[in-house]
């Protein structure tokens, strides 16, 4: 802190932003008022799982030592747990905009001797980021919307017809073979449920109706309304039409 900073504080002026935190133009995401950051943190701590996911932190580093993402990114599950434990809403906001999408969600960090679940804290932070349409969530989900569409509309996430060589050029020429022979190779599968190409297996219509009811009644579908408004609109229309056909009212 410079002498001027100290003087301005002594004079009762508002403290300047902590130099540790990046300015919005450097960070690539908008800064928001402290109250908004505090509100986001409260949304995290209000999740019913939060109290099972965070106790205290020894700074022992076990979670970092087992973390695949810590080996490749400037990422640390220990810092996530620490920031949450310290209720440092500035740092938590920064982590929600920068760090959380680097986590692999492998849950190796569950061996924390204190019983913390840094990966679980991140799951909640991501949910809050999606729910509030944070820039990091929009960025993370750009290019991902077809997967969300697939899982929410068909009940299976990975379909054979996703194996396109232009989508997976790094997976080798076999991907091209699969897509070239897709229909034939699928028909060669002995299990009757697996002759599909647009879904992993044949899901019954009545099952899909039930799945749509779950997305609608739990608010899961509405979570994406801020991050991807057009996807949200398409899925809502699809589900509502389908339910209407069945004579089901929401």
């Amino acid at each position, binding site marked *: 802190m410079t002498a001027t900073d100290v003087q301005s504080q002594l004079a009762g002026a508002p403290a300047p932003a902590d130099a540790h935190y990046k300015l919005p133009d450097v960070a690539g995401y908008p800064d928001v008022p402290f109250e908004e950051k505090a509100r986001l943190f409260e949304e995290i701590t209000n999740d019913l799982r939060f109290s099972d996911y965070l*106790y205290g932190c*020894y*700074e*022992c*580093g*076990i979670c*970092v*030592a*087992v*973390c695949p993402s*810590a*080996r490749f990114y400037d990422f*640390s599950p*220990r810092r996530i747990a620490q920031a949450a434990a310290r209720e440092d809403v500035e740092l938590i906001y920064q982590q929600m905009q920068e760090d959380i999408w680097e986590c692999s969600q492998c849950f190796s960090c569950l*061996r924390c*001797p*204190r*019983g913390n679940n840094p990966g679980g804290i991140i799951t909640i932070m991501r949910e809050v980021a999606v729910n509030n349409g944070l820039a990091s969530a929009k960025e993370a989900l750009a290019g991902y919307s077809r997967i969300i569409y697939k899982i929410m509309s068909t009940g299976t996430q990975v379909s054979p017809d996703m194996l396109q060589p232009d989508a997976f050029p790094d997976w080798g020429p076999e991907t091209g073979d699969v897509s070239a022979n897709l229909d034939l190779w699928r028909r060669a599968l002995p299990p009757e449920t697996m002759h599909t190409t647009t879904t992993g297996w044949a899901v019954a219509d009545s099952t899909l109706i039930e799945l749509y009811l779950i997305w609608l009644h739990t608010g899961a579908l509405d979570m994406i309304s801020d991050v991807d408004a057009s996807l949200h609109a398409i899925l809502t229309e699809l589900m509502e039409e389908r339910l209407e056909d069945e004579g089901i009212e929401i």
Partner: protein
Amino acid sequence: MSSQTVAVIGGGPGGLRAAHAITEIGGQVVLIEQREFLGGTPIAENYAGLTPSGEPAEPQIRAMIEAVTAHPAADVRLSSQVTALAGEPGAFTLTVAGADGDQTIECGSIVIATGFGHFDPGRETQMYGYYEYPDVITLPDLEAMLKTHTVVRPSNGEPPERICFIQCVGSRDRHIGNEYCSKVCCGVASKEAIEIRQLLPGSKVYIFYIDMRMYGYWENEIYWPAQEKHRVQYVKGMITEVLAKGDRLLVRGEDTTMGRPMELLMDLVVLSVGMEPSAGTRQMAGVLGVAQNRFGFIDAVGGPLDTVSTSRKGIFACGAALGPADLEDTVSSAAAAAMKAFGCVRANATATAG
């Protein structure tokens, strides 16, 4: 033997000190030990040196044994187990199963000195491979080696060049349920690290820790000399996995002061296993009907100013039967328990006489 006698259960350092203390102040004591020998864990597990002084353990413990066995007011029963308790404070009757069958012992009060057991690293939350790799050993395993003045890799009998200690094994862990600090492991590991550096001056010795806890004089008597004189390397960060790589062991953790994952090759890995209530402590709590705390140790009910009274009047406990304790704690609480137990029979004698 009568209601004027104090019964001490357990013949380790705590029980020996308690028994000796009772004879010193003019009381009668019967010392009951389940093993066929006295001396407790330091003898059974072949401890090399006492912490913090490093003095050879066996002669020191033997002196304690002599002090008891040589005293006419002390009756020592080896290979004996308490199986039942009847009566009330001032007039207890213990049933003791021994080599010659069941016997009864009349006593006025009881001191439980049944001590601790070392945590079994097979139950550890981290992946240390104690049951997979010969060169992963525990603090007491190393003590037994140090007693022979030889430290080798069990896999090949060669002296190790790179050795590490991993702290808090089985302690301070919510999953295991041992939420407490075992108190002694920081000091014992540092003492052993010094001994290795003295035996093998070419070796490199690391200690991986969460916090180093060496209170009071242990700081200047062990921690500083270990770092400054013997060049033991202290790294703040825990090891989470030990796996074989070639014929060495790869240890993996985070160097938390540097903030990066670390991987190092070791020849010998020493797990600083913590303390748990011994099987004897758990059994005696049941047989004598005294309350245990949620970790299974005997519950001291008197608060911070009375460390030895149990939930049952006339029954006291000392040392590691009450929770993690070093030898200094143990002999201190043993003397306190002896005094309380003796006071109990004296008060009873006075009441009877009156």
